[in-house]
C-alpha cells in the first residue's frame, strides 16, 4: 500500500508540474516589451529557466526491510523517514550535464510492540554526503545518478519507561541510486536583480543502501539512581543487517 501511495505521489507530481506556470521566454515578447517606454514603476517578476546553484529540500525516504533481523529491529517491513537536504551544483560541464553535491540528514523512527510483547522503539539519524550527475533532458526534467555515503547512529529501546533496555550504535552506510529532478522556472521574488530567483525543485530517487550491520547490546538504567549499583550485564540481542532499497522524494526550492 505504501508503494502504491508513493507511486501515486510521483505520478501526481509529474502531472502537477506541467500545471506550473509555463516559462514565458518567447522571442515575440522582447519586441512588445521594447515598445513600451521604460517606466519608473517596477515591472512584473521575471521568470527564467536559469540554472540554480543551490537547493534546499525537505525529503521523505521510504526503505524496505528485506532481512528478518532488520524486520525484527524495526518491527515492520517498510518504514519512512524524513529529513532535509542541501544540494549544490558544483560543476557545470556546459550544456546540460551538471555535477552536484548534496548534504542530507534523515531521521527514521519506529515504535512497535514486538513478538515478545515489549514496546520497541528504533530510531536512526543519518547524515549523508552525496554526489550526483545530472543531465538536462528538458528544462524542467533532468534524470540523474547519485552516490552517497554517510554515517549516523541507531538507537534501540525495548520495554516500558523506567524498566527499558536500550542501546545506541554508530552506523555507516553508502548508497547508490538514480532519479528524476523536476523543476519549475525560476521566479525572481523581488523587483531588482538583487533579489534571488527561486524555483521549485522536486526529486524522485530510488536506490539501494548498504551499511554496516548494527549490533546491539542492551543496557538498563534500572539501578542507575543507586550510588553503587550491582553491575548489570548488558544483553546482546544480536545484529541487524543494514541493506535495503529505498525511495526518496524531496521537494524544495532552488536558488
Amino acid at each position, binding site marked *: 500500500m505504501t508503494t502504491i501511495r508513493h507511486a*501515486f505521489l510521483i505520478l501526481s507530481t509529474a502531472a502537477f508540474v506541467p500545471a506550473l506556470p509555463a516559462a514565458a521566454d518567447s522571442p515575440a515578447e522582447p519586441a512588445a516589451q521594447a515598445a513600451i517606454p521604460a517606466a519608473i514603476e517596477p515591472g512584473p517578476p521575471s521568470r527564467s529557466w536559469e540554472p540554480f546553484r543551490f537547493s534546499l529540500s525537505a525529503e521523505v525516504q521510504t526503505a524496505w526491510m528485506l532481512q528478518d533481523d532488520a524486520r525484527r529491529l524495526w518491527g515492520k517491513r517498510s518504514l519512512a523517514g524524513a529529513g532535509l537536504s542541501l544540494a549544490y551544483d558544483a560543476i557545470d560541464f556546459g550544456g546540460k550535464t551538471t555535477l552536484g553535491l548534496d548534504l542530507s540528514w534523515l531521521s527514521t523512527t519506529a515504535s512497535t510492540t514486538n513478538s515478545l*510483547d515489549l514496546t520497541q522503539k528504533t530510531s536512526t539519524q543519518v547524515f549523508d554526503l552525496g554526489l550526483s550527475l545530472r543531465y538536462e533532458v528538458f528544462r524542467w526534467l533532468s534524470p540523474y545518478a547519485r552516490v552517497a555515503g554517510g554515517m549516523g547512529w541507531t538507537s534501540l529501546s525495548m520495554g516500558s519507561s523506567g524498566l527499558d533496555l536500550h542501546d545506541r550504535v554508530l552506523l555507516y552506510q553508502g548508497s547508490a541510486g538514480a532519479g528524476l529532478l523536476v523543476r519549475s522556472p525560476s521566479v525572481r521574488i523581488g523587483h531588482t536583480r538583487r533579489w534571488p530567483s527561486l524555483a521549485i525543485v522536486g526529486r524522485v530517487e530510488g536506490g539501494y543502501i548498504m551499511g554496516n550491520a548494527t549490533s546491539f547490546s542492551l543496557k538498563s538504567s534500572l539501578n542507575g539512581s543507586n550510588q553503587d549499583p550491582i553491575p548489570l550485564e548488558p544483553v546482546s540481542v544480536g545484529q541487524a543487517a543494514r541493506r535495503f532499497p529505498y525511495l526518496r522524494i524531496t521537494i524544495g526550492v532552488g536558488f
Partner: protein
Amino acid sequence: MKRATRLFLLLGLACQPNSETSSSTSRSVLPMVALDNSVAYVDSSSGSTFLLDPADPALKPRILPTGKSPLAAVKRKGANQLLVLTHGDQGSASTAPEPARLVLIDPASGAAQASYDLPGRYDQLAQSDDGVFAVLTYGSASSGASGSMLYNPNDLEVVRLDGKQPPLASRPIRSLGSVPIGVRFSPRTTLFGQPRTLAVVSAVNYVTLLDLDNAQHTEITVPLVPDGKQTVTPAQILFDMTGPVVYLRADGSNDLFQISLAQSTPADSSSNDFRVSLSLIGSGSAPSDMGMFGTGDKMRIAVTAPGAQQLVILDPKTGNATPVPTGAQVNRILLFQGPSPKSSEIQDRAMLAGVGTGAMALVFADLQNIETAQGLAIESWSLPAPISDIRLLPGNLALLTHQYGYGGAAFSIVNLADRTIEPIGSSGALDDVTVETAAPSRLWGTDGANRMEYLDLAGNLQGREVILDQTIVSITPLASKSGDGKRHLVLEMYDPMNVGYLTVLDADQPDRKGARSAYGFLLTDYLERGQP
C-alpha cells in the same frame, strides 16, 4: 493554492507514521528450573530454552530451540538434565505440524540429548525419584487442557529416560469413571526376582498399578469404594517394598487402604507375575497424615487424626488400631530416629504438629512400644505461635514456620533430641522462604522488597542480610559448584516485563560486593532468532 494543497497532501501520504503494531502472540515464560549448577528458562512463545550458567561472567544464556508450545520444564531427578514437555503445533495450510515432544537437555553441552515424539498432547509429567521413568498424563478430561479435539484422558505414556529400550510405551489404562490425577512411583527394588519400579496412578475412587519395567503388561485397577455412592480421592501413598505393600490414604475415607502384592503365575504374556489384594485398615476419623516405622512384624503405621486429637497406631497385619490421645489438633507427622531427653537410644520417634489448625502445641511421641505405653509415650510442648509449615532438617533438627502476627516469631528451630524449641524472631513477614537442607543448612528469605536474609540453621542461628537493588521474588541456592569453583545463589528479581532478571551471589558467602545481575537475558539474540 489548490495545487499546493494537493502537493502537501501527497507528501503527507508518503509520510505515514512508523508505528504499526506487528502481530505478536501472548507470551509466557515457564518458571525457572534450578539444575545442579545452572538455571533454565523455557520461553513458551519462542519454543526456546535458555540455559544460564552463573559462572559465566557475561551471564549470557545459551539458547536451544526446544519445540513449539512448551508447557512444562522440570529437572530430571537424579541427573543434571532438563526435561521439557511440548505440545508441538497442529499445523496449518502453510505450516507443517509438529508433534508433541519430551526433550531431554544436557545443560553442560547445551544440546538436546534425546527427543521423544509423543503420540498425544500430554500436559502432566511425573517422574520417578531415580529419574529412570517419566509418566505423562492428561491433566484433565476437558479438551482445553491439551488442545486436542478428541482424546482419551486415560491415555498415558511411559517414558524410559535411562536409554534402555523401548523408550516409549503408550498405555491407555482402564477407567472406572475418572481420569488420572497424579502418579507416584515406588522405590526401585527387586520384586519377585526382577528389579522393577511400580507406578501408582491415582484417580477419584480408584488407583491403577503399573509395572513400568513391563509397561505392556495389563494394568491392575484397585477400586477404593464398593459402589458409586461415595467419593474418595487418594491423597498420600507409602511404599513398603519388603511386603511388598502399598499404603494409601484418601480424602473422604476413614480407612487406610493396604494393597498387598503377591507373586503369581501369569496367565499369558500380557499378564503380570503378581497379583494384588486389598485390605482396609480402620484409622479413626479423617486421617490427615501417615508414616511408617518399625520393620518386619513390628512395622506399624502412625496416622494423625486431628478431629479426634489422636495419633492412631495401626498394625497392618491384624488391622488393630491403637488410638493415643495427643491433646492437640495435630495433622502432620514427622518421623525420625534419634534419642530423647530421657533416653539416649536411637529409636523411632515422631514429632506431631498442627499445621494451619491454629494449634499452639508441639507433640513428641516415642513410637517404640507406644501401643502399650500409649499416653506415657506422648510429650507436649507449647509454641509461641501457630504453625504454617514444618520441615525436617539434617542433624535431628526441624524447622517450624509460624503464622505471622503472633508475637513476632517467624520460625522456630526444634532440636528433636533435646526437644527444645528456639524461636527465631523477625521484624516482618518473610516471603519466599527457602530452606537448604544440604550442608551448610541455611534458611533464606526476603522481606518482600530488596532485602535478603539468611540464617545458618546448624550454627549459632545468627541472621545476616544482603541488600540488593530490586525486589527479590525467589531465592534458589544451587546444589553444586559451577565451573568457577563456587556454588551460586540465584535470585529471581521483580521482572514485570518477563525479560529475565537474575542476581547471582556466592551461596556460601553471600555478599553484595560479589553480586552480579543480568537483566533482559531472555532477549538474547532476539534479532537473529527465528520467528516464534
